[in-house]
């Protein structure tokens, strides 16, 4: 191989590498939008689409790791302690369209705040901010949602 040929090969490889990097960056930007204002209804729409299109992985990548701000319902019997807390993402609308009840792992002190606000009220609407740490989504297993580092921003007894 001549020097000129070697230079061309090196340049070509480098160029391809740069293109690949640009693609990766572009793809990451495309799949990780700002979802801070997205609601559970937005997620539900994407879950439904994923069921039809088989795009479970893409949806999971878009949502996992996002810091979200949702209003959910805390039922005392399903969230009786900081270590076992699931909340309803949607109000009762017979029959339920989705089975999942997001699980919550609280930031320090936040469950105590929730407990103080809601007490033993059977049903209490709460505003939370948390990181969607796990979104189980596939054609094989049921959908499930889990939030970490949850902060409780407000509550309204119903």
């Amino acid at each position: 191989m001549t020097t000129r040929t070697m230079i061309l090969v090196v340049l070509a490889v480098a160029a391809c590498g740069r293109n690949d990097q640009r693609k990766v960056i572009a793809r990451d930007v495309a799949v990780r939008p700002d979802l801070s204002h997205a609601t559970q209804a937005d997620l539900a729409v994407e879950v439904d689409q994923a069921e039809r299109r088989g795009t479970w992985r893409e949806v999971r990548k878009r949502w996992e790791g996002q810091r979200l701000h949702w209003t959910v319902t805390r039922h005392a019997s399903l969230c009786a302690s900081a270590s076992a807390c699931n909340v309803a993402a949607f109000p009762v609308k017979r029959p339920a369209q989705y089975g999942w009840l997001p699980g919550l792992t609280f930031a320090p002190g936040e469950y105590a705040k929730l407990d103080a606000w809601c007490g033993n009220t059977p049903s209490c609407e709460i505003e939370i901010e948390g990181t969607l740490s796990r979104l189980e989504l596939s054609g094989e297993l049921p959908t499930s949602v889990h939030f970490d580092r949850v902060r409780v921003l407000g509550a309204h007894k119903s």
Partner: protein
Amino acid sequence: MNKKLLSAAGLSIIAGAITATASSHREAPMIGEDQFADNTDVYAFISPGDSNKLVLVADYVPLLLPQSGPNFYRFAEDAQYDINIDNDGDAVPDWTYRYEFETAVKNGNTFLYNVGAVDSLDSPNLNVTQTYSLWKINRKDGSRQRIMSGAPVAPWNVGKRSFPNYEPVALQAIRDANGTKSFAGPRDEPFFVDLHVFDLLGVGGAPTTDGVNVMSLVLEVPITEIAKGGTRPTSSTDMTSVVGINASASRPQIRILRKGRDADDYGKMIQVSRLGWPLINEVIVPLKDKDKYNRSEPKNDVENFGAYILDPEVPKLLNLVLGAGCPATPAGGRTDIVGLLAPNGTKPADLLRINIAQGQTNAQSHFPNGRALADDVTDTLLTVACNNGGAIGDGVNANDKAFTTSFPYLASPHSGNP
């Protein structure tokens, strides 16, 4: 009790929407294509003869016609049939009793299940036989103990010519190992319900599961064998006084069909069916999630399916077709149903939970504290689901055959040629 019998159209539409079959018989699309791994019902009750023992019944292979020859029903050889027990309330199994089956054919040159009258399990006339190994598996550390091996499966009740006196032959299949009794084989289908839902919205009150059989696994175990710490709890209100039971079936992940020989199975075992309470996957979980339910674990039921329990479809259907007057689901959801799934503060899950504390007796073993064979769970669950202060039923209130007071408690299977 004033029971409101569902009207013909009402029952049909309700049950049709629920799914079509009995407690968990062919309840989901995929398991409907895998009959031998389809578990149908689970029962758990304190033994009527010894209150220190717990009876566990797991039924599989639904709705079997007695005259189903020449290849009469059996258990699958390539499936694992598990009875799982959670003894500390976290909805994670602590013990599993696992049945694994093998089939033998004495003479492959005949199509006959038996070549003459059969008067014992050892009869040379019994051509097709099954045996099983029963394992007790510690799910915490994975250790396994084989409790029984080569235990016989009771034969099919082919007919009066083949089995002039069937039941004594079948009961020879009972095995006892250090106080643990086991029976595997065909029995009369113990679940009773009206299934005329498929006959163009047919009548209510017809005992449509009469006359059919099912494949049963029956275990009677010392309570100390399965209780947390090996001791029967003294307080009936403690979380560990309640054990949660479910049954499941698993198949190998990969099956390769061969042109010139039998299929090969590879890979780990994948759960394809499970059941704790009757009717959960039927009436609570909607069609889109039924197969996923069968593959999932009870410990995740709230996270995966909790909203369906809080906001069930059944009352709406009862109102729609029957005008049953079921009140609207409260804004707070049906937490009463969640509570039934979580006695003594246990984690809510589709597990059949029963109190095993000292002093508990067979008389107290009635759904939802365990489930006795004669419990009319359809009526109970319809009544709970509607929650209108009255009672609702399907009009079928008892099994066609009487249950027995001795092991294995289920009635003898119907004969293929009575």
